């Protein structure tokens, strides 16, 4: 059932949502205006056109997970890929340290939010899936270190002591993104939280190019290059090999249990918004170590 992506007002037809959004935008309501600016168009259109655009934007051709994948690619890998992804094509020490320092906060919050999914669901396969994910992120498996540990080791290999890494508070953009995800965790049902969180793992999915992404999350020659410490390669390889199955499997569960696809779409877009902001925070932190990095965002 059609939904306003800004205030979640429901109507039976998209044209009613379009009239509502048009009116809200005319009144300069920041949340509605920003949603259209960031997702649909920055140029004002009339209600009829807006209705068509909204319907097209939310229409699900194959399944919900395909829609999520498509929107993710458009936002992060489309015409102008996110500057952090551009920086990862040739990462400097600054880029990687910015990654380490901000991402430790992301990962801690990640497992907290996943635990909310477990708390809210009675579906056995979902509970198992999330516990496994938490395990890999936080404790490691089959004697291999966790993602969290691999991340810290990457930072150490770049010359920053563990205590120093752990002493950093998150930048405001990181904190703002974390607040968004925590809000989603508290307010949404478990399928929505799953979609909002695991769709973010698409960022490192190496199959994305098959769906139209122009580049991979990082330049893959890094994995066999001698220019980077082993710990950097270990961390990047882990994501390279794991996240593909992570995101793919979780999104299959989302398809299977989705009862309100429009609500899930809206929540996923909110999560993407937070993620885009968070990725910039990694670069911003990186600028403390590499002044030239500002050129990446210019």
């Amino acid at each position, binding site marked *: 059932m059609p939904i306003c992506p800004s205030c979640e007002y429901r109507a039976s037809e998209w044209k009613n949502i379009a009239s509502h959004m048009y009116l809200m935008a005319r009144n300069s309501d920041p949340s509605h205006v920003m949603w259209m*600016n*960031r997702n649909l168009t*920055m140029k004002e259109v009339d209600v009829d056109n807006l209705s068509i655009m909204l319907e097209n934007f939310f229409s699900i051709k194959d399944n919900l997970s395909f829609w999520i994948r498509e929107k993710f690619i458009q936002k992060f890998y489309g015409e102008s890929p996110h*500057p952090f992804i551009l920086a990862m094509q040739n990462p400097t020490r600054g880029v990687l340290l910015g990654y380490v320092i901000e991402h430790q906060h992301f990962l801690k919050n990640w497992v907290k939010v996943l635990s909310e999914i477990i708390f809210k669901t009675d579906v056995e396969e979902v509970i198992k899936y999330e516990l496994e994910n938490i395990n890999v992120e936080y404790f490691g498996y089959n004697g291999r270190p966790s993602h969290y540990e691999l991340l810290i080791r990457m930072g150490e290999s770049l010359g920053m002591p563990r205590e120093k890494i752990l002493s950093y508070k998150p930048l*405001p953009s990181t904190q*703002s993104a974390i607040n968004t995800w925590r809000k989603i965790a508290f307010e949404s049902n478990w399928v929505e939280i799953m979609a909002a969180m695991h769709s973010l793992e698409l960022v490192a999915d190496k199959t994305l190019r098959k769906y139209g992404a122009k580049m991979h999350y990082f330049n893959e020659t890094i994995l066999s290059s001698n220019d980077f410490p082993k710990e950097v390669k270990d961390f990047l390889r882990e994501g390279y090999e794991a996240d593909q199955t992570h995101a793919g499997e979780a999104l299959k569960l989302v398809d299977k249990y989705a009862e309100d696809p429009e609500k899930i779409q809206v929540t996923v877009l909110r999560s993407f918004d937070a993620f885009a902001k968070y990725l910039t925070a990694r670069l911003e932190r990186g600028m403390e170590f590499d002044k030239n990095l*500002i050129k990446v965002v*210019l």
Partner: protein
Amino acid sequence: MKIQVNGSKAGDKENGCALCGATWGDYYEEIDGEKLFFCCDVCATEFKNMIEEIKRRTGWKKIDELSIEGNYYKGRNCVAKTEGREYKFYVKFGDDAEIETFKEIE
């Protein structure tokens, strides 16, 4: 003030919001004696905060030209001009329209 956002003229309803370039909305704010168009009050507050910061850092009384490139996610790369002088900076806003990051660019 002559304003350009991502390569296009901005600051009136026809051309778009003085900060982001969007033509949605209908919000006006008087800045340096000039009525400027914004898509919403958040963009207007961000713009005002940015103008104040430029003036504070440069000591300029007014700004003749302002060019803004970028967006909400990655921040904005700007050039301000007055009486033949030029000032370049990067700015990013926080959740309450406050300046979160401001870096001067040589």
